């Protein structure tokens, strides 16, 4: 059997990491139960953390050891599912993608994502965002299909350069951080929001798609694409590099005649 020999100095580093004293930090978490409360109250928790811990780790520590009633949504713990979006020290971010020691603060204030109705504590309702997303037809629209009436099937071939046009926007994990940062979403309850508009562009620019005019008609609305003012906050907070502001401006370029 092969044995792996760990060099002596490496073992020391490992021991050092394990033995390192834990840091202490104050978590101030927003708690609001719509059935009982009229306003949000903030509850403080003193917790210990290791330098590799994320905000999600800390919240789960609170939930498991200090306050089991704390409501939050999470799943993958690796910025892939888009479940754990929240306001961390005033900015929308994924809790699993934010390391505590990178915040550079002795106090971590956690609030539910703004511009989303609160279900309870940090869990918010995504219904409006998903409705807007669906409204803009987030799928390939074609008159034909890969499966024909005959036995033969066909492929819709794309070259790599065609994929490059939309792959950035296909990275969206629907976490809602962009909608939370958007200044228009802050007051306009009917605005489609950066998430949905970007996805409209993602499908519109797909070489297999034929739904350009359908989508352009939908977004050319009083609360549609024109309510975006290119403040760029959506792109600032996007954890996947989607850059919604870019997608939205490209999409608007079609309506302004800069693209065809």
């Amino acid at each position: 059997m092969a044995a792996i020999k760990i060099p002596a100095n490496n073992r020391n580093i490992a021991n050092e990491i394990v033995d390192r004293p834990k840091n202490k930090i104050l978590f101030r978490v927003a708690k609001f139960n719509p059935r009982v409360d009229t306003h949000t109250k903030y509850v403080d928790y003193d917790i210990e953390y290791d330098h590799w811990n994320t905000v999600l780790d800390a919240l789960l520590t609170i939930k498991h050891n200090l306050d089991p009633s704390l409501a939050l949504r999470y799943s993958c713990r690796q910025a892939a599912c888009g479940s754990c979006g929240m306001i961390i020290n005033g900015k929308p971010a994924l809790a699993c993608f934010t390391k505590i020691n990178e915040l550079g603060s002795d106090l971590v204030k956690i609030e539910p994502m703004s511009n989303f109705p609160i279900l309870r504590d940090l869990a918010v309702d995504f219904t409006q965002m998903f409705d807007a997303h669906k409204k803009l037809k987030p799928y390939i629209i074609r008159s034909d299909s890969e499966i024909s009436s005959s036995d033969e099937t066909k492929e819709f071939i794309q070259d790599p350069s065609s994929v490059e046009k939309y792959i950035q926007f296909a990275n969206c994990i629907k976490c809602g951080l962009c909608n939370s940062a958007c200044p228009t979403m802050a007051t306009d309850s009917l605005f489609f929001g950066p998430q949905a508009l970007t996805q409209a562009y993602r499908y519109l620019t797909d070489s297999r798609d034929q739904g350009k005019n359908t989508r352009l008609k939908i977004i050319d609305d009083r609360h549609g694409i024109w309510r975006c003012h290119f403040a760029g906050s959506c792109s600032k907070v996007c954890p996947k590099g989607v850059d919604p502001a870019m997608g939205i401006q490209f999409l608007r370029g079609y309506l302004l005649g800069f693209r065809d």
Partner: protein
Amino acid sequence: MIRESTIMKIHYATALGSVALVVIHILFRFTQNFHDSLKFENVLINYSLLPYSILLELILILISIHGFNGLRIILLELNQGKNYETLVTYSCLASMIALITYGSRTILMASMGMI
């Protein structure tokens, strides 16, 4: 009902148009000493020049459209609801027309020497 894209194209066009014309309007203040250019007689001479009056009228129309549409956009984003949005749209339109009418009266009467 005008499509929002048409309204916004007008918004951009009026912006560009007014920038070009306002530059000329400001340059007129520099044809002489700034304070002298505001003297009653000198302003009347300005108004008596037909191209300048047309310039003022165009600026009045372009900025009124751009400004009140900008206000409409801000107010539409501030609150929603069918009645509110109708009220905002028509109020901005009425204010725009009122301002253009009021300003045109000044330009027309001053340029015709009806003082």
